[in-house]
């Protein structure tokens, strides 16, 4: 089998985050240090140590240090990576962010910041722009401040509105990402109006996919069939109305599909993720969803070896690993058997066909979940907020 080259690296700089969204895809067992959104200094202290702008690993509960990230970024570029997404947690919690963006630009990478926006003041915005940041994807919980703050578990909405304005003023392309679920899906029209008002170039209306905290909170998050259909009609109409002005992407919750999503365009084909403590993952959710897979760490190995040689990247590469009905399916190089994490979470075996596929012998698992949501008159409203551990030593300093 020839090993392809990767195109994009997702750099999860930290699991720290000021928000507590109940659908966070971060691992549920990973409650690292965090700053509190009630703390007015959140994100601002980043401006202070500018002359050093480096983070030593010992400061960060095991998070990769600045010099480790710069090495990872250069190795990724040498491997063929063209795009880098800085994500988390909340990447703004890292005060070496602009330094890392500059490093990526020097390696000719296209740089995306995937952020809640909390902590992005004028000073910070200018630093990121001057470092060469190419685009920002800003997340929103809803268009309505009260609902948005309830979902985020923090007073964040008003600050996000101000941040969107700052991004526009800095002249950086803005994508908005509305995470959609049962509690906010009926406000899709209003969310699209907000995106128009904020002057976004691109809007993702992405239904929650069920990994991490979202998997735990599925009963409270999965929309009903009627909601999904109505939302799709609204998104389609808006797409036609705003064509040429805003690109709108509506992502269905895949439980309602009959064929699985082409997850990652195939395992170990185009994407790699490095998580805060340096583990290299074929998929951002793999570390929590697939417990029997052992991941390599950038502290022990270089990125090229991990991409090409490691067991974790090769386990589901290509089509040889596939079971029936995938193995003989003409779709096998269209959807690649779907999502390994979903197979693991729903069937306890990552090598099974994604049970979203109606040809999967395990489709009944998905149908049972849908049956419950769509036939019950009393739907669960409570969710567990993403837990964030308390701020530790040097972060607070």
């Amino acid at each position, binding site marked *: 089998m020839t090993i392809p080259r990767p195109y994009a690296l997702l750099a999860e700089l930290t699991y720290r985050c000021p928000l507590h969204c109940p659908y966070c895809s971060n691992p549920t067992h990973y409650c690292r240090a965090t700053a509190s959104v009630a703390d007015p200094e959140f994100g601002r202290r980043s401006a202070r140590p500018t002359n050093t702008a480096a983070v030593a690993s010992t400061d960060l509960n095991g998070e990769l240090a600045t010099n480790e990230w710069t090495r990872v970024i250069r190795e990724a570029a040498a491997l063929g990576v063209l795009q880098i997404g800085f994500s988390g947690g909340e990447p703004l919690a890292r005060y070496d962010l602009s330094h890392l963006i500059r490093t990526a630009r020097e390696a000719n990478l296209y740089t995306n910041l995937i952020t809640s926006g909390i902590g992005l003041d004028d000073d910070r915005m200018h630093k990121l722009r001057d470092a060469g940041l*190419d685009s920002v994807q800003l997340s929103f919980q809803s268009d309505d401040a009260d609902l948005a703050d309830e979902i985020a578990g923090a007073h964040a909405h008003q600050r996000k509105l101000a941040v969107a304005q700052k991004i526009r003023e800095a002249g950086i392309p803005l994508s908005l990402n509305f995470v959609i679920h049962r509690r906010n899906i009926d406000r899709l029209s209003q969310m699209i109006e907000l995106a128009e008002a904020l002057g976004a170039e691109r809007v993702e209306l992405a239904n929650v996919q069920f990994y991490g905290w979202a998997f735990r909170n599925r009963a409270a998050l999965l929309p009903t069939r009627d909601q999904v259909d109505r939302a799709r009609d609204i998104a389609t109409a808006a797409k036609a109305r705003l064509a040429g002005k805003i690109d709108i992407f509506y992502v269905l919750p895949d439980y309602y599909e009959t064929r699985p999503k082409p997850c990652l365009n195939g395992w170990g084909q185009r994407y790699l993720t490095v998580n805060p403590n340096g583990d290299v993952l074929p998929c951002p959710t793999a570390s929590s969803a697939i417990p029997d897979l052992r991941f390599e760490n950038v502290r022990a190995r270089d990125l090229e070896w991990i991409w090409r040689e490691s067991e974790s990247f090769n386990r589901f590469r290509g089509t040889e690993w596939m079971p029936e009905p995938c193995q003989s399916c*003409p779709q096998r190089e269209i959807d690649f058997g779907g999502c390994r994490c979903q197979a693991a979470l729903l069937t306890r075996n990552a090598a099974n066909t994604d049970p979203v596929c109606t040809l999967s012998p395990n489709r009944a698992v998905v149908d049972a979940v849908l049956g419950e949501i769509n*036939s019950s008159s009393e739907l669960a409203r409570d969710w567990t907020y993403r837990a964030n551990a308390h701020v530790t030593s040097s972060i607070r300093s």
Partner: protein
Amino acid sequence: MTTGLWDRETFVENLRAVGTRAYHDKHPFHVAMNEGQLSPEALRGWVANRFYYQRNIPIKDAAILSNCPVREVRRIWIHRILDHDGDATRRGGLQSAQPGEISAAGKPPLLDEGGIEAWLRLGESCGLSRAELVDNRHLQPGVRFAVDAYVNLARTRAWPIAIASSLTELFAPDLMATRLVAFEKFYPWIDPRGLDYFRRRTSQARRDSDEALAIVLEYCSTPELQGEAVRALEFKCDVLWAMLDAIHHAYGNKEGRLPSRPTKNPGGLETAAPWSDSARPRLAKGVRLEVDSATGKGVLLYPEGIVELNETAHEILACCDGRALGEIVQVLAEKYDADVAALAVDVRETLADLQQRKLIEIK
């Protein structure tokens, strides 16, 4: 035939080229429909005649199944028959729950009624009785002839060729969605509950065309089969176009002349975008041009996406630094010793494609 086997990309490109030229989304009757210009009589005429197509689709698909010895293909294909005829074991559109299950709310679950039933309800919403549709009283001879020819192709030709003929939905993934929006906007006299057929198809069409394309790419594996597949797709486009011609003739605007379809080779200067030599193309905001170190080729990078460029596109884009179009053409013509007039067309076509994808702006 001396042509060799096309690689997958070329094959797909050749299939898509058929749609660009001949798919019925460009038929004036369709255009008028989506612009809200049809009278209720014309719309009812379309619904009644199109029903003959709907009711024959499962027969066509059963013909394909009966010709296909490959189990893996049959198990993918069979769902199309259930999608149209309905399935008592499935709920509307999604497979869940056991037959006969009573929901917590005390109502029987809504079973999947199928596309044909949904079309009958569309008819009722437009003021056509079920009997009127079922007994074919409005059916135009041209429509019957075209649909029967389509079913005949599925019965008599190799099954991968018949599947290729079904690829028309590949050309307009948003056609159903556009139609749905247009109906809601322009024809408020139609009960919106009657529009379920279009809602069903918005999600089914994409899945169906993905599946069919995968099968065609795998099983049309000789140059002869590939060529036949493209011709079968042209035939299917002709079927759809001829149906609309017949409907237009019977119910459309009485201009006395049927609309003609774009010809096969619409070449020449008039197809190029009408930019003057002083127009200034630039990369759009947020788009960067880089050289991919892994391949040495040019790439455009933009939020969440990458476009790999061929050599020509790379050369052109490298010149899009504020220079005027005329100057860019001159520079490239000198560099490659090419004819200025021909190059001016090529450059405009490339830029038009990139502009459509919002990767460049022209000022």
